[in-house]
């Protein structure tokens, strides 16, 4: 009886899965076109899964082994079950193999069940809670029905009742695991995830056989502004490209992104996992009532209840301002809470690109609705009128350095290093960092020059606020300025400028030209100077410090080593925060978040300063003007020691060995004097 039932069940499940797949693919195809190499993409799946995806999953050893056993076991068991039970070819080793893999899968599903017993808050509940049972049903069912096939049990063991029960168990497993995959059950992640790996919008993120392949692709994609009639940004779910929609559908609701999101922890109305799920809801049409994970926090109500929001593929994601108190799929505050720290993207095992999606939607709000919140509109207007976000006189960019006699590119036309100062020139705190950096460069005898008043804001804030037009205008004008001069590299103490110059300007060079020069963060450059023996440091600063990795230096550009090497050369004692390196927690200063200023229960910099205090360090070393400003804005609570915030350049400048025989001869008297003042 099973002999007739099983092939019917298996092939029915496969047929239903095929129908579901077509329907699911139709949902994705509602998105905008985005050409991909189909066959080559599909061919990369095993490698991208086994190497790149596993690299992320393996950060949680138990889960990674569980997944290998369960998923590997399932794929093998399903393949073999088709052959053994579907086609009835149980001869020889095949049946035994099937027994082995279904047993492995069963073992894996026990671990899945164990994790689901007392699941952490970041995991979604709902249908996900039945998944371990379904996995067991499938593996156990297949195991038992295979026993007669290999001859361990007689074919008619147990009679028709047992056979019927077994068939029911197998049917349940097949329903969840095979056609549930394409009909929107928890196993959807496997189907969508595999295709998402194949057709990922950022293929550069993945390793290749030839080697690392960079594994980093963090620059935002340019928005095409050529067609002046086209609506800009993403207004409705169908305005995403189809492979972005596919990516959202791949989410396994593991909540790793939620666990690391600083905005979520601060009680701002953002949860990256919920956001991705909302996009899935929008793509399919409906309300978010079935979402079974942590909701968006709400400063007033604690949590935003689910079921209040709904969307459709061609309906707006954010309710337009004209519909008063209107709710659509997502509230605008959710999108504006993000600091673009990329912690979520770094942790996501499904390689989903949250930041791209958020910026795409912000582009619509800013460019089409004119709805940048808080001081956002003012900052953008300033950038348009004065080329800096503070609205300062662009002719005063070098006022802070009136006594330093910095060589201007306009005069010298070529230099070893172009020192990109950034908008910190208008900020008194950052001016101290810049003076320190100049002192260090002079001590090492570096031939550098600055653009002075020819420099403009890099466009970073404008772009993260969604104003691609202003970003592109700033980028093009900066590029035109840069192309007038000859230099070997650009050095900057602002990781945001660093990222934009290094990773985002490339797309805006006029045809036939390219950037063709390296860009270094000052920590990297100073480390090079130390390694080359160009800096003499007086060791013995007996300080206990901790180092905060800026998001735009670390996760965006992978530079974790150089600042630590510099600190080591200084001889200070470095204590790491619990969340450091690629897991560093954002200071709250990125993505225009301080400008849009969405309220939460607490402030992100306060939380990060709490991390700093845990280490009992006397100083926190930073490498970013934003981080400096955010940390110095933290008011210590009563009884807490004040923790000094120092830029790495200031640390190095203070440690310079200025004894006469050690110092390279200053080039002229004014230089020596200028550097004196930086000491204080």
């Amino acid at each position, binding site marked *: 009886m099973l002999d007739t039932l099983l092939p019917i069940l298996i092939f029915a499940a496969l047929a239903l899965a095929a129908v579901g797949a077509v329907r699911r693919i139709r949902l994705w195809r509602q998105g905008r076109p985005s050409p991909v190499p189909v066959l080559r993409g599909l061919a990369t799946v095993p490698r991208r899964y086994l190497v790149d995806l596993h690299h992320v999953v393996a950060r949680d050893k138990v889960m990674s082994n569980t997944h290998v056993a369960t998923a590997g076991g399932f794929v093998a068991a399903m393949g073999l079950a088709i052959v053994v039970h579907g086609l009835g070819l149980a001869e020889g080793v095949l049946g035994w193999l099937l027994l082995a893999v279904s047993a492995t899968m069963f073992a894996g599903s026990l671990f899945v069940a164990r994790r689901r017993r007392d699941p952490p808050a970041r995991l979604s509940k709902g249908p996900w809670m039945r998944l371990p049972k379904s996995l067991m049903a499938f593996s156990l069912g297949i195991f038992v029905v295979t026993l007669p096939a290999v001859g361990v049990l007689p074919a008619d063991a147990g009679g028709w009742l047992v056979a019927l029960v077994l068939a029911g168990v197998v049917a349940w497993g097949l329903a969840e695991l095979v056609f549930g995959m394409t009909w929107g059950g928890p196993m959807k992640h496997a189907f969508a995830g595999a295709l998402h790996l194949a057709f990922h919008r950022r293929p550069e993120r993945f390793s290749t056989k030839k080697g690392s392949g960079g594994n980093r692709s963090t620059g935002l994609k340019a928005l095409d502004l050529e067609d*002046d*009639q086209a*609506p*800009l940004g993403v207004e409705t779910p169908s305005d995403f490209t189809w492979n972005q929609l596919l990516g959202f559908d791949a989410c396994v609701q593991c909540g790793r992104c939620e666990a690391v999101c600083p905005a979520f922890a601060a009680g701002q109305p953002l949860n990256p996992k919920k956001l991705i799920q909302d996009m899935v809801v929008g793509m399919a049409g409906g309300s978010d009532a079935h979402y079974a994970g942590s909701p968006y926090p709400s400063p007033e109500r604690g949590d935003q209840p689910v079921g209040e929001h709904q969307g459709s593929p061609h309906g707006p994601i954010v309710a337009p301002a004209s519909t008063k108190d209107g709710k659509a799929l997502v509230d605008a505050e959710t999108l504006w809470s993000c600091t673009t720290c990329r912690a979520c993207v770094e942790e996501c095992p499904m390689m989903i690109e949250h930041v791209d999606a958020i910026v795409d939607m912000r582009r619509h709000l*800013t*460019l*089409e*609705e*004119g*709805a*940048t919140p808080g001081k*956002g*509109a003012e900052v*953008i*207007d300033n950038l*348009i*009128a*004065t080329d800096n976000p503070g*609205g*300062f*006189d*662009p002719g005063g960019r070098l006022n802070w350095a009136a006594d330093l006699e910095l060589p201007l590119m306009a005069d010298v036309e070529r230099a070893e290093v172009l020192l990109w100062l950034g908008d910190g020139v208008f900020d008194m705190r950052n001016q101290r960092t810049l003076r320190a950096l100049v002192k260090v460069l002079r001590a090492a005898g570096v031939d550098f020059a600055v653009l002075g008043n020819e420099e403009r804001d890099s466009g970073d804030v404008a772009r993260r606020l969604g*104003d691609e*037009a*202003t970003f592109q205008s700033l980028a093009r004008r900066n590029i035109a300025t840069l192309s007038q001069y000859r230099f070997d590299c650009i050095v900057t103490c602002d990781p945001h400028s660093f990222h934009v110059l290094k990773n985002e300007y490339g797309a805006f060079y006029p045809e036939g030209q390219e950037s063709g020069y390296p860009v270094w963060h000052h920590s990297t450059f100073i480390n090079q100077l130390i390694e080359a023996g160009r800096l003499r440091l007086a060791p013995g600063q007996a300080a206990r410090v901790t180092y905060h990795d800026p998001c735009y230096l670390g996760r965006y550009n992978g530079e974790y080593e150089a600042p630590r090497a510099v600190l080591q050369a200084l001889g200070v004692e470095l204590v790491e925060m619990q969340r450091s390196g690629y897991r560093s927690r954002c200071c709250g200063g990125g993505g225009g978040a301080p400008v849009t200023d969405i309220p939460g229960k607490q402030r992100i910099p306060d939380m990060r300063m709490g991390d700093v205090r845990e280490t009992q360090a006397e100083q926190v070393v930073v490498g970013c003007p934003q981080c400096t400003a955010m940390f110095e804005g933290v008011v210590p609570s009563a009884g807490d020691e004040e923790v000094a915030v120092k830029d790495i350049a200031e640390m190095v400048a203070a440690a310079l060995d200025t004894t006469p025989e050690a110092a390279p001869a200053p080039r002229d008297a004014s230089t020596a004097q200028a550097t004196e003042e930086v000491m204080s």
Partner: protein
Amino acid sequence: MQPESAMTPGLEVTVLVSVGRHPLTGRARRADQDARGVELARSFADAQVRLLHAGMRDESSEAALRGYLGMGFTELSLLEQPQGADVLPALAEALDATSPHLVITGERAERGEGSGLLPYLLAERLGWPLVSGLAAVESVEDGVATLLQALPRGQRRRLKVRLPAIVTVDDAAPAPRQSAYGPARRGAFEATAGPVSVDDEWAAWHVQPARQRPKRLKIVKAASARDRFKAAAAKAEGGSGQVLTDVTPTQGAEAILTLLREEDVLR
């Protein structure tokens, strides 16, 4: 945004918009006061709002005018005028022809003569009433508008005005909304040629950047923080003024002249 108020449906409003000039960089932009005027007009429910600009059309002025389109308009009427022309006749004729109920404009332009006289000359020419320093339009019923005029230090005066009328706005009016890039660049200019009257006098003028005038220092002798706060919050320059009532125009003019001499404005 303004609270929606009782409005006669189909109220026709024309906002006169000019090309502004950023005070630090001199870049062309939407003029701040005019943009406030547009914002005011946008707050009327069911009004038909038309943007009108008279002036030269070139790349930079077009970019600046698009700033108004980005506040949610699909078109802007443009009376093309050569550089240095007196736009008064063209505007008067255009307003006469379209006869809107309400004309809103900024107090003074950010470039050109910037005397702030245009609204008054226009009102004189059209024979319409003019209200300056508008903070809000409360309602329009049966051809009469109830307006809220801004006075110094946050005071408001309620006025009733028979339409058609010209109103001007200054910094007391609500701040303009953000100009969105997409609608701004999709918006269209509907250009018409108006009568041109060349301003010979203006052409002969010599224009140079203003020198910053010395500021009278406010010397505060305060012993406590409370005194300092009171001094900072006190009315500016109270006490030394004089109120002239029932004087002849000549007497009034003489009083003004004397003051200007005292202040070294005239020597």
